[in-house]
C-alpha cells in the first residue's frame, strides 16, 4: 500500500518535471515585456492618448529643467524691467511681457512647477485616505463603521468641491500649502465613493469568501484580496484627476488664494492680465492657453490609461 503510494508520487513528479521541460521557455523578463507591449498597444490605440502623453512629458520635463530651458530664468521671481513692460510677442519675448517687463513664456513654464507640485501632493494624500476608507466601509458594509464613513462622505460630496475649497482656503492664510490642504480635504470623498462601490461587490465574490473561510485575517482580505481589484479604476481616476486638481488650483490662484506673487501661477497670471485687456491681450490669452493645454494633455493621457487598464481588448472604447 505504502509502496504503491510512493510509486504514484514518483510518477507524478516525473510527469511534472517533463511538463516543465516541454513548456516553452519564457523568462519573467519576457513575460513582463509581452505585458508591456500589450498595454502599450492598448494605450496608443487612440492617437489622442499618445498626444496627451507627449504633452504631459513635455510639461513635466520643462517644469523640472525650467532653469535651463527658459530664456530669462530670473524673470520668474520679483524682477522689474519697466523699459520692456507690456511688450507684444516678438522674437526677443516670444509670448510678450507683462506689466513688470517680465517674459510671459518664462513665467508660464515656471508656473507649471507649482501646478504639478500641487496635483501630485493633493493626490498623494487624498487617494490613499479615500481608498482606505472606501474599502473599509465596503468590507464592513452594514456596520456602524460603514454608516459613519459613508455619511461623512455624503456630507463632503453635498457641496461642490470648488466652493468648500474656496471657503477653507479663504479662512486660512493665502498660500500654496493652504490651498493644497483645502483641495485635499475636498478630494478624498470621490475615491471613497468609487472604491466603496467596488468593495461592496467584491466582498460577496467567492475568492473573498473562501479567503475568509481558510482563516485569512481582515487586513489580508482588505489589502491583498480586495484592494488589487480596485486599483485599475483608482489609477484611471487619478490620471484624469491631475487635470482637475490643476484646474481647481488655477481657480484658487485666480482669486488670489493660491501661490502668492512674485512666484508665478497660471490663474494669477490670467487675473493680472485681465486688467490690461483688451490692449495687452497676450498677458491673458497665453496663460489661458497654457491651462487649457495642461488639462487637455492630462485628460487625453488619462483616457489612454483607462483604455490600458480596462479588461478586454479595448476595441469598444
Amino acid at each position, binding site marked *: 500500500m505504502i509502496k504503491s503510494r510512493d510509486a504514484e508520487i514518483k510518477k507524478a513528479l516525473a510527469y511534472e518535471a517533463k511538463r516543465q521541460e516541454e513548456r516553452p521557455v519564457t523568462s519573467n523578463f519576457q513575460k513582463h515585456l509581452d505585458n508591456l507591449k500589450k498595454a502599450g498597444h492598448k494605450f496608443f490605440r487612440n492617437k489622442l492618448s499618445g498626444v496627451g502623453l507627449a504633452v504631459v512629458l513635455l510639461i513635466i520635463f520643462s517644469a523640472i529643467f525650467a532653469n535651463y530651458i527658459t530664456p530669462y530664468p530670473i524673470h520668474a521671481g520679483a524682477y522689474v524691467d519697466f523699459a520692456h513692460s507690456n511688450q507684444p510677442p516678438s522674437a526677443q519675448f516670444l509670448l510678450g511681457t507683462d506689466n513688470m517687463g517680465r517674459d510671459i513664456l518664462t513665467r508660464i513654464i515656471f508656473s507649471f512647477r507649482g501646478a504639478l507640485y500641487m496635483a501630485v501632493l493633493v493626490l498623494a494624500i487624498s487617494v490613499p485616505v479615500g481608498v482606505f476608507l472606501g474599502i473599509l466601509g465596503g468590507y464592513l458594509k452594514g456596520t456602524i463603521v460603514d454608516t459613519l464613513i459613508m455619511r461623512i462622505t455624503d456630507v463632503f460630496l*453635498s457641496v461642490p468641491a470648488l466652493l468648500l475649497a474656496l471657503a*477653507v482656503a479663504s479662512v486660512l492664510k493665502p498660500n500654496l500649502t493652504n490651498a493644497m490642504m483645502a483641495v485635499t480635504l475636498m478630494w478624498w470623498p470621490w475615491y471613497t465613493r468609487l472604491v466603496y462601490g467596488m468593495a461592496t461587490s467584491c466582498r460577496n465574490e467567492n475568492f473573498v469568501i473562501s479567503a475568509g473561510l481558510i482563516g485569512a485575517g481582515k487586513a489580508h482580505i482588505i489589502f491583498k484580496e480586495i484592494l488589487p481589484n480596485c486599483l485599475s479604476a483608482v489609477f484611471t481616476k487619478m490620471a484624469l484627476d491631475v487635470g482637475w486638481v490643476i484646474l481647481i488650483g488655477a481657480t484658487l490662484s485666480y482669486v488670489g488664494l493660491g501661490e502668492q506673487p512674485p512666484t508665478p501661477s497660471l490663474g494669477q497670471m490670467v487675473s493680472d492680465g485681465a486688467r490690461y485687456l483688451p490692449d495687452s491681450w497676450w498677458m491673458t490669452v497665453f496663460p489661458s492657453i497654457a491651462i487649457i493645454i495642461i488639462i*487637455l494633455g492630462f*485628460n487625453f493621457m488619462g483616457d489612454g490609461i483607462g483604455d490600458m487598464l480596462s479588461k478586454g481588448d479595448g476595441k469598444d472604447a
Partner: protein
Amino acid sequence: MDAGGSRIVHTSFFYRSQEIPHKKSGLSMNFKKFILNRLLLSIVVIFGLSIVIFCIARIVPGDPARMALGATATEHALETFRAENHLKEPLPMQYVYWIKGVLTGDFGISTMTKRPVIQDMMEFLPATLEVVILAAVFLVLGSIFLGRLAAKHKDSVLDAAVRVFSYAGVAIPGFVLAVLLLLLFGYVWPIIPVLGRLSHGIAAPPGITGMYTLDSLLSGNFSTFGDAFLHILTPALALCAGGMFQEARLVRNAMTENMGKDYLAAMEGYGVPKRLIMNKYLFKPSLIPAVSCMGMDIAALMSNAFLIEVIFGWPGISKYGMNAMLAKDLNAISGVILIFGTIFVVINIIVDIIVAYLDPRIRLGGGKQ
C-alpha cells in the same frame, strides 16, 4: 348610462390595466420608499454639512471677536462681543447656539456689510438664481438638441464639432471662458452688453421675485425685459457652455449606442414610424446617463457662478460670498455655503427622482440604490 355601455368600458379598462399594470398607478410603493429614503438621507447630509461649516468657521487662526470688530476695538467691546456671541462657551455649545439661530433664519451679522446675513442673502440670491436657472435651461435644452442632432448625423462635421467642443468644455476653466467672452462681446464684437444687470437709465422692475427678467415680464414691461435678458445672456453662456457640450456628447453616445439595440430593430420591423422611435423609444432611455450628469453639472453651475459673477460684475450671492471670503466674514461665508449646500442637495434629489422616472428599473424594481 345603460348597462351594455358600462360593461364595455369596464372590460376595456380591465384589459388595459392587465396590459400595462403600472401605467396609471404611477408611483409604486417602492418608489415612494425610495424618495422617502432619499429625503431622510439629505436631512442627515445637510445637518452634517452644518457641522463641517461650523468647524471651518472656527478653525480660523486668530480671535474671532478681534476679527469682527477690527484692530482698534477696546478690550471692553471685545468682552461684550464675546459674551453676546457665546464665544466663551465650549465649542459644542457654540454650535448649538449657532444652529438654533440658523434654523430660525438668523445667520448672525455680516461683519462686511454690518447687516444681518439673511437680509444680504435674500437680496443677492435672486440674481444668482436667475443666471443659474437660465444657464441650466440652456444646458438642458442645448445639450439635448445638439446631442440629438449629432446622433442623427453621425460622423458628420456637426458630430465632429460637438466632439471637439466637448473636449474644449472639459479643458477651458470657467473663468478663462468668462474673460474670453468678455473680450469678445465687450470689445471685438460689441453686440450685447456684458456688465451689470441693466443698462444705465433703465429703472429696475418692481421687486416681486428679485429676478429682473421675470419681474419685468410679470409687470408687463417688455423693454426692460429685453434689456435685462441681453445682460443676462453672456454670464449664462459663460456658465453653461462647458457642461452643455459634454452633455451633448453623452446624449449622442447613448443614442448611437442604443440605435443598435434589438428592440429598436424589432420596432422598425413592426412598422412603428421612424420619428416615433427616434423621439420616444430611442430618446427616453438615452437620456438616463446624461440626466444624472446634468444634475451634477447644474449643481456645479452654482459653484462656477462664484467666479463668473465676479468677472461680469453680477451682483449675486456668489459675488457676495466671494467678497465675504476675501474679507474673512465668517458669518456670511457659513451662511452662503449652507444655502448653496442645501440647493445642491435639493437639486440632487430632483435629479434622482427624474432618473427614477425615466428608468423603470429603479421606479418599478424597488430602488436598489
